[in-house]
Every structure is written in C-alpha cells, then in structure tokens.
C-alpha cells in the first residue's frame, strides 16, 4: 500500500514538472515579467521609416577554379566575384562607389576589393563585378565571401552567404644553382661551401614541417679512378651556420647514400618568401664536407657514376 502511494506521488510530481517545463519553455510566464506596477503613460514616438534600402540578392563567382589549388608563387591568383543589388526605390539611391567584397577564412588575412565595378543595371537591379587577389600562401579550405554596399543615406547592407573552396598546393623552388668549395686539402675536415646557403622558397600554401625536408645524396666518385670518392656519408647539411654548425652532429644531418635524410629542424612555413628573411616561407640549407679522405688523388669527382642528389618536400 505504501509503495503504491509513493509510486502515485512520483507520477503526479513528474507530471507537474513536465507541465511547468512546457509552460516555461512555451513562454506562458513571460507576461508576468511585464507586470511592473507602474501606471501607464502617454508617449510620443518618432518613427524614421526608410523606403528602398538595397538588398544584395545574389553573390556568385564567374571564374573561381581554385578547388585544385592556387597558382604557385610568386604569382598571385585573381578570382572574379559578382553580386547583384536590388532596390525597390530604384537604382538611383545606391552608392555604387561603396560596392565591395571580401573573402575571409579563420587564421588567414582578409582579401578584399573595395572598388568593385558596376557591370550592368536593369530596372531595380545592379550587377557588380569584383576582382579579388589571392596570394599563393592563402590557406586551403572553405573561404567565406561577403559582399556589401551602402545607399545614399548610408544604409549599409551585406550578404555573407556565399563560400568557395581553395585547394592545397605543395611546391618549392631552390637556389642558387651551384655550390662551391674554394680549396681543400685531402684529409681535411669540416670544409663548408663558400656560396651557400641554398635557399628553399615555399611556392605553395602547404607548410612543410620539421623532418619533411629531405635530401637523397650520392657519392661523388673520381672520374678517372672511380674506386675512390667523396662519400655521401662525409657530407652534412644543416639549417644553421656559424662555428661550423652545418658540420656539427648536433645541429646538422649526415647524408646517407640513396637514403632520404630529413634535415634536422629545417622547415618551410607557408608565407611570403619574398620577405627574404630565411623564415617566412623560406629555409636556408648549409653544406659541409666533413671529411675529404686522405686517399683522394688529384682528379675530378662527380656523380657521373651515380645518380643526382635530390631535395624533397613532403
């Protein structure tokens, strides 16, 4: 009997809670908040009614084909974006000089055109076309497009409902085109190249993180006596120089014949490599001949008998 009472009470309590919840979420108690106790007063309200505020009806692209990636640096990629403005009061009230468009993505710089061109006018509609410049390091992903305009009364309207996708580009260019060692003695150690670094520029929008710049080295064999060589394992490559850092085991990477060796710490950010600071979109590699064997004889040494050195990013 007692359990039955408890059960019935629990059910009644649950029903009450559910009803109260429904009433609260349904807004039935909102009117209670408006009961203030103050007497009602007569007020004069000024109404400012604006007729014919423009509306941006459509934002569309004419030439976006960047889903497969941007053109590699140092070229930019221009995309054409168009939008249509409608005004019930006619197009005469639209301030055409304020037509602008911007493309944005989290963590990326805003790309904007503040002087879109009027393309065509028909009854109450005006079409605008905007050229937006994207840079080679602009990140892959979905970009938001926001078109905006003002009328002659400075009423501002915008439409941010459009997007486009930008693909991922992995690329690099390196230079200079030669390395030199001015002079060296057989048996010498830690001989650094005289015209390095070799500069790697990131021409894409994909950052290359540490351990993903690799070199596949080969032996430089004697062209007359090919049994002796400047062995690949006697070269090292590093991201730093000074006090023979490119020769040091702690700061450089020893080459290994026909094995990809990841250059310690070296990386390539996605950025404007034309800043030329060895950091933004750029990496410098320094080369060292750690040992010229004492058995070496006077002759030319080259990779004629083996394959070339290759620098890889991944």
């Amino acid at each position, binding site marked *: 009997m007692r*359990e039955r009472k408890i059960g019935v009470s629990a059910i009644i309590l649950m029903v009450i809670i559910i009803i109260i919840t429904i009433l609260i979420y349904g807004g039935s108690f909102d009117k209670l908040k408006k009961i203030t106790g103050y007497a009602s007063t007569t007020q004069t309200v000024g109404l400012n009614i604006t007729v014919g505020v423009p509306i941006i009806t459509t934002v569309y692209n004419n030439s976006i084909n960047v*889903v*497969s*990636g*941007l*053109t*590699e*640096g140092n*070229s930019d990629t221009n995309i054409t974006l168009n939008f249509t403005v409608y005004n019930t009061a006619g197009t005469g009230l639209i301030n055409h000089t304020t037509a602008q468009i911007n493309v944005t993505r989290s963590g990326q710089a805003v790309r904007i055109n503040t002087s879109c061109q009027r393309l065509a006018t028909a009854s109450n509609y005006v079409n605008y076309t905007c050229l937006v410049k994207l840079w080679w390091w602009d990140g*892959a*992903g979905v970009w938001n497009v926001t078109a905006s305009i003002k009328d002659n009364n400075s009423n501002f309207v915008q439409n941010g409902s459009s997007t486009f*996708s930008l*693909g*991922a*580009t*992995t*690329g*690099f*260019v*390196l*230079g200079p*085109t*030669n*390395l*030199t*060692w*001015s*002079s*060296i*003695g*057989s048996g*010498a150690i830690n*001989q650094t*190249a005289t015209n390095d670094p*070799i500069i790697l*520029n990131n*021409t*894409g929008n*994909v950052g290359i993180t540490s351990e993903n710049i690799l070199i596949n080295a080969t032996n*430089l064999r004697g*062209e007359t006596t090919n049994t002796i060589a*400047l062995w690949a394992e006697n070269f090292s490559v590093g991201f730093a120089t000074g006090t023979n850092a490119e020769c040091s085991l702690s700061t450089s990477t020893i080459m290994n014949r026909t094995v990809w060796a990841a250059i310690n710490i070296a990386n390539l950010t996605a950025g404007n490599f034309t800043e030329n600071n060895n950091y933004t979109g750029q990496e410098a590699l320094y080369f060292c*001949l750690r040992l*010229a064997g004492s058995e*070496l*004889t*006077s*002759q*030319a*040494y*080259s*990779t*004629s008998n083996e394959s*070339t*050195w*290759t*620098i*890889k*990013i*991944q």
Partner: protein
Amino acid sequence: MDNKNTMRINKKPKIGIAILIGIVLFINSVFAFAVSSAYWQDNPLKIMPGETKEIKIVLQNMAGTENITLKGKISEGDDIAKIIDSNDIYEIPLGTKKEINIKVTIPEDYKVGENYTIKASFTTVTMGGGSFGFGSSIDKTIPILIVNSKGEFKKEIFGMAPAVFYSIIIILALLIVLIIIFLIIRRRKNNQKFKRR
C-alpha cells in the same frame, strides 16, 4: 663552366705542407614545380567500400626557369590507387599546368570510419647520365576517409550506426532497472504479507 657536379682535387703528397684542393660543385639543373589537389589533411577524399573514384591532381611549372620532366608514381597506397595516365613521365613546359589522373578503388571489406593515405610522388628527371643537379621531388599526400552511402563516416558498432547502438543499450539498461525495481517492490509486498500472517 663544366656542366657537371664536379670536385677537382690536386694531391701533392708533401709532408708538412698544406695541400690546396679546389672544389667546385656545379649544379646545372635546378627545377621548381608544385603539386596541387582538392584533398588535404582536413578535407579527405570520401569514398565508400567497394567504390571507385577518379581524382585529379595538378602539376605546375610556374615558378621555374625552364621546362621540366617529372616522373610520377604512387609511393604509398598503391594497393588502392594508381595513376591511370598512359605514361608516368610528364613533360611540363614552363608556365603551364597539367592534370594527373588517379583512380582510387576501395575494397568491399574496408570499414566505414577508417582513414587511409595515398602518397603520389613526383621527381624531376635529369637527362643524361653524366650530368648532375639537385633534383627536386615532392610527395603529395591524399588522405582518404571511408564513408557509408549517406556520406557518414562514424564507425559502425556490430553493424549498427553508433546512435542506434547506444540507444538500444540505454533502453536495455532502463528496462533492467525497471525490472529490478519491480522485483524489489514485489519482494517487499511478499515480506509484508508474510509478517501479517
């Protein structure tokens, strides 16, 4: 200038005298290129078990100074992807782009929600065995996500969608709790009847 990567060593074995050796490492061919695709780490190729898709990646030679020749291959994931162009050697004239076609086929037994990776490798081809240069190579990673016919990619549990599976578990748990409560109440009733007697 010699067109080879060459180091010249002049050895004059004379004790106590430094031997000067002139070394020049010539690099006659430096190439620059880029590989673009619509798929990257945060935007994988979504594909169903048993499905085949053809995708394109783009080779660019816009930043170099000369025409380049690239050799392409699938260096990772060649069991599910292959280059389907007639030749895996690509001539890319300076200032141009070229599309590469890759066919991806996913076996029926691959599980929804699993991730795979294809790696397409492109390396500059240097002509002539004697010449030397710093060749360039790029590995382009294409992530793959196995999805179901609705494009969903949550892993199935015992052949059911996770939401269905967990709903069943919750319902079963509630039923068990109710049964236990029912049994406890019934036992108490029986005990009370017994005490009254």
